[in-house]
């Protein structure tokens, strides 16, 4: 078996607040293989963006990484000094943020911004850097003549493409994309995602893809981790997740959003709201909202356990290697139906 490109082990991130510390990422472990698209989904505040920022080590206080390892190609990112980090960021892992307008410099032409990223890391002449920026713009589907345009002269979709061009400028083996198309229209979103897929085939990079749009995630990712309140509660190949969710939270998520495809299905939503992480519930953090809760759920925390078929789930309903189909159980509980 090949070595994982990124191996996050027991990562723990805390936000130090006056009233105590909030554990936003609670001993999370996952791996990303070379060329793989790993999707991370969950509600706002569940810690998915915090994970992305800790991999690049760009978290600012009050957020502090208090434990674990982030192994990239076997080297621990958390042990790197500033010089090593500078080398690591962008040339090994680049990031695409949600808001393209905020990640581009409004007073700099987009061609120059791409060239700037290249020259910050490599000794390249202005002319060569410009040539490479022209190439990159072609790669992401922007007319190279637009390289003299300022960000405000581009549409939202074009800006996001420019940001992707900057991320690809050093040909990194891994991209982190944090809600890259959330601000865009469905049609533009589809185009950008298709283009990303082609680029991935061409350059062979891995992607850590973060979004709360599960339909998009299931279509684009190879494997998906579902996060809830700082924990990964379920991990599965994306083809299996929708049809056979094993964690009650995943099931709830899958039944919270309407679909346009297929027959109308009943929507149930998830009762309650995410816990206050200053005083999280003991045991399983989802227990207070779970309709299949058992006595042991509120006393001890279930760990991510393999259930076969490359799947992992953190839930006491399943025993190791012996998954239970939860859909009939959930449906019989008759939660709020629309």
């Amino acid at each position, binding site marked *: 078996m090949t070595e994982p490109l990124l191996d996050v082990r027991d990562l723990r991130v805390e936000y130090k607040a006056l009233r105590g510390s909030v554990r936003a990422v609670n001993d999370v472990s996952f791996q990303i293989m070379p060329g793989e698209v790993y999707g991370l989904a969950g*509600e706002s505040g569940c810690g998915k963006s915090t994970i992305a920022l800790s991999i690049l080590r760009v978290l600012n206080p009050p957020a502090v990484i208090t434990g674990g390892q982030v192994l990239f190609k076997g080297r621990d990112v958390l042990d790197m000094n500033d010089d090593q980090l500078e080398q690591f960021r962008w040339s090994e892992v680049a990031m695409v943020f949600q808001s393209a307008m905020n990640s581009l410099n409004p007073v700099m032409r987009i061609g120059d911004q791409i060239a700037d990223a290249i020259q910050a890391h490599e000794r390249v002449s202005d002319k060569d850097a410009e040539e490479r920026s022209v190439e990159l713009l072609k790669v992401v*589907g922007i007319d190279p003549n637009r390289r003299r345009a300022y960000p405000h002269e581009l549409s939202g979709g074009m800006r996001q493409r420019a940001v992707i061009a900057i991320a690809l400028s050093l040909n990194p083996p891994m991209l982190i994309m944090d809600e890259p198309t959330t601000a865009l*229209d469905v*049609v533009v979103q589809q185009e950008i995602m298709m283009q990303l897929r082609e680029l991935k085939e061409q350059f062979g990079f891995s992607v850590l893809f973060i979004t709360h749009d599960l339909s998009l995630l*299931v279509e684009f990712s190879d494997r998906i981790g579902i996060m809830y309140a700082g924990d990964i509660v379920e991990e599965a190949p994306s083809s299996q997740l929708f049809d056979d969710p094993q964690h009650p939270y995943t099931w709830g*998520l899958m039944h919270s959003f309407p679909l346009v495809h297929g027959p109308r299905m009943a929507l149930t939503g998830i009762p309650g*709201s995410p816990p206050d992480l200053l005083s999280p519930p003991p045991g399983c953090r989802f227990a207070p909202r779970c309709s299949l809760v058992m006595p042991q759920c509120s006393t001890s925390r279930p760990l991510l356990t393999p259930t076969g078929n490359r799947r992992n789930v953190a839930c006491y309903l399943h025993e190791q290697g012996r998954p239970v189909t939860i859909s009939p159980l959930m449906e019989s509980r008759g939660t709020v139906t629309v």
Partner: protein
Amino acid sequence: MTEQSHAADPPILEVRDLQKFFPVGTMFARRNLRALHHVSFTLRRGKVLALVGESGSGKSTAARCVARLIEPSAGQILFKGKDMLAEERRGASLQYRGDVQMIFQDPFGSLNPVKSIAHHLARPLRIHKKSSGTKETAERVDQLLESVGLAPARQFSDKYPYELSGGQRQRVSFARALAVEPEVVLADEPISMLDVSIRMGILNLMERLKDEHGIAYLYITHDLASARYFADETIVMYAGQIVEGAASEELIQHPAHPYTQRLLDAVPDPKAEHGFKQGAGGWQPPILVDPPPGCPFADRCPHAMPVCREIMPGRTTLNAVHWVRCHLHGSGESSPGLSEPNLPLSA
């Protein structure tokens, strides 16, 4: 169904041939951006009409014109049969502003960060004279908070917007709209900034308020799926024109306009085989400034014919609950300037 079956259910608000131009360019090269072009639709008591389209298609401009936050360039807004643009030439009256309320997309930007939640609800009550005296107002504020699911009200009324989650803030927006007992609510992307698991709660709230108060909704969204679940009828807007309208489920099952088909095709499908469907590339925005004649979608349409670049077709009725403006289905019965309000739905 026929018009007669609606005799007992007259439209509350009818928009006819609404047009809006924004002047652009410099003083000597004045040009017009055509944001709305002959837009017509009807809102009925206790019914939801969804207005779907991409960013920049004019959905929000339409809502703002109806709320009279901006003045339309031409057309009619009939509220209970009276043309408000003719009756209230110099801006909407307090009465109209109370009857037609708007909910905005961003629950962070639409509440005042330095005022308490109670203030947000007491102010419209006072301005619209819906309550008198401090005690009555406070009671009404509590009632409103509880009616949108923020209970116990005492816990919320003294809080500030930053202390609430996005979903709770959006509930406050609804409570504020309800304070003035509106008949029409224009909801402009009310759930698009909320978390997936919170969205259903807000849609359920909207549904309940609709049933309890008989509110007529204009539900503006770019999300066809939520329109399918929430709206009785859906109309699709492209480049300031309404190109198709149908009962919501009918529209999803049998989209007739190539643009609607493209929109539906672009929605990710988690149950599909892994991988994206192949869509047409080179998505360019339509020309809105001094637009050419013909159908605005012609440049992107896979079925474009020469006639499409010359004439914008009128409405062609496909069946009792479905009409479309596309030459593929006929040139339409009426010219765009004389279009009917949207087709009545079977009960």
